[in-house]
């Protein structure tokens, strides 16, 4: 199962849990699983069925390029962080 790290400002919705192990082959599937266990979490990370603008999802240390369709391995580590590009 993938380890999904919960952003600090979302932890009130996960009962304070910092990370949760979830089943899913994509980021989208993981977020559906997260929502099933912790209602009200997905809407904070997804807008119009896309990853929230301004947010990046990091899978195993690398920025995922396919948004909600990004593949996730069974032992992957997933983080949601502010998108940083540069000038």
């Amino acid at each position: 199962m993938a380890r999904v790290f919960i952003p600090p400002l979302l932890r009130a919705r996960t009962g304070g849990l910092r990370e949760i192990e979830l089943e899913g082959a994509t980021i989208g599937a993981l977020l559906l699983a997260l929502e099933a266990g912790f209602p009200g979490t997905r809407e904070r990370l997804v807008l119009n069925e896309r990853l929230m603008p301004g947010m990046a999802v990091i899978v195993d240390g690398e920025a995922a390029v396919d948004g909600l369709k990004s593949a996730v391995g069974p032992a992957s580590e997933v983080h949601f962080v502010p998108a940083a590009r540069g000038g």
Partner: protein
Amino acid sequence: MTQSNGFKVIGTRPVRHDGVDKVTGRALYGADVRLNGQLYGAMLRSPHAHARIVAIDTSEAAAVPGVKAIVTGADLPHVGDQIADIGEGAVNLRHLSANILAGRKALYFGHAIAAVAATSLTAAQQAVNKIKVTWEELPPVLNLRDAMAAGAAPLHPDVFTDELGEKSTTPSNIAEHLRHEKGDIAAGFAEAEVVVEREFVTGTVHQGYIEPHSATVQWNADGQLTVYCSTQGAFGVRREMSEILGVPISHVKVVPTEIGGGFGGKLNVYLEPVCALLSRKAGGRPVKMTMSRADVLAATGPTSASIVRVKLGARRDGTLTAAQAWMAFEAGAFPGSPVGSAAGVILAPYDIPNVVIDGFDVLCNKPKANAYRAPGGTNAAYAAESMIDELARALKMGPIEIRLKNAAREGTRRADGPVFPRIGFVETLEALLHHPHFQSRLERATGSRRRGRGIAAGFWFNWGGTSSASAQVNPDGTVALSEGSTDIGGTRTSIAMQLAESIGIPVNLVKPQVVDTDSVGYNDATGGSRTTFATGMVAYELGQKLREELIAHAARQFEVEAAAVRFEDGAFRTDGKPPLSYFDVCGALRDTGGEIVASVSMRTKGEGPAFGAHLVDVEVDIETGKVKILRYTAAQDVGRAIYPPFVEGQIQGGVAQGVGWALNEEYLYDKAGHMLNAGFLDYRMPTALDLPMIEALIVEVPNPRHPYGVRGVGEVPIVPPAGAVANAIFDALGVRMTELPMSPARNIAALAAAGVAA
């Protein structure tokens, strides 16, 4: 000939492909564009920092001879609330539109209000002067403390504090609050034997590119728009034009000109939609508008002023146990400061088990902040690196010693969560440690002059993004390369070098050109230190395709299978037959299967985070407060230096900008919010006379995810300078400077407050 680095092209110093055009003045920049029937545009800008626009009367302006069109905010389509990823983070398109031409309110001094197109620039400017605006002045909010104060009047009635999707119930100037947490902060500080804490303030600064914004736009009767402009990202301009003007993206063609600097300030549109509206009103005649320096400074992307508090805890042996940072960044008139990236940068160089970082994006009546080279990184590192220095002094440790002890390495978990891949921070610190500059003794000055030495580190994520390119092999063996990445810092050549290396040919056979948005696949902007990495990765793949095709053609000439052909040292070889030269095969393409054309588009992954460590010696005159940079050495892990002079130039340029930010640059406003120094005489950037030769120390810890090991260069070198200079000033004076810029007046005041007499 293969070099010691194992490559034939990478790491060499060929003549750059755009060199002749640029040194002979033939290269075309934004303001060089001239089209048949072209009109000239001029802009009316707000004289107020905050004012309601009651009415705009353009009747007298319209009567000026030569005037062909006048537009105001009312001419912009209503785009509504749409959140999009444009530039550095999320952008509300309604805000982007309102920044192009003000709607009901002017939100900063210099905010665009109305524009005129006329047959001459003089006529356009005369007409602008005759536009009558009825204003209702409003009190401006000009700094972070006022903007964040309880009861502060909100700039926008519809901006609420966003905490990862949860909104405040009342409007606020705090547009966003973000947080990172790692470990147990209370336990971390409880474990600490030494704790230091301080607050730092930084001023608003500008990217300071030499070339002002310039755009020329023609809106044809068939609905097709052609945009000629100086931009970091032609495809971003295409999208913004489409979104702001409400036209299909296929109706917009963007032709990028050469660019005279951008540094993040030329990622978004300012003039382009206005020129388009004027062109349409003027019957499709092209309209050109070029900003003055005053317009550039007053109305385009400065980077955020900020307040940053840092608290560090460590054991006596120097091991960091906890860190807490609080940072507020000015967004300007619309949400979107780089506080998010600042929060990722601020403690990234260090492996700290317990961390809390809070960031706030704050509205005020200043121009909308834009990205500036490692956005937010300089502000953040100034505070954090000052505190690392303070901690080292408290622990009686050396500045490199404490950084090495706590340095992030492969496997270190960042405060925002992800784990670092292979990085080269330790190697960078060690390179600086063994450098003659660090090993040298700083001679102490006499009289009123005091000398000091400072060190600071910096980090940037680097970005991959999407790149596309295409190429064709010509009969004479040259390869025409079409790319869509604006050439900044010589990227044409660094991309061409990677293509040449991949094919196995000399780089002078590659003819690179940056083409318009209809002529190549999508490219993200040149920014975030991505182009040499990402477009280089595309060039590598493109080269492999061309090489494979060339081998197939050679195999047909040899009348053998392709698997039996090798391409080595400029010749195709197969067992038992004389070799064919590269040029023989290219000259016979039409007889061996036809032309060779290839395209590659990639959403790249595997960007390599990068670190720098800077060492500076300063001399401070305690009578005048002036700081002189005596010697500067900047070490940086670049992964692989494709074209070393460009890498050195990027590092030197970043340092120069960082030193300007540290010592002189700052927007000055009066109490009403009028900018007082909108010109390069009064907005003081460093010149060659202000700086010594900056030594760039290239460290190469190859990025394992890039075929040639590239990480990216341009962002990191602006991150450490302010902290390094501040630490050197402390070393010289024993006074901790907590506000940027550390100008003569501010230094004198700090010396007086500390009781240091001249």
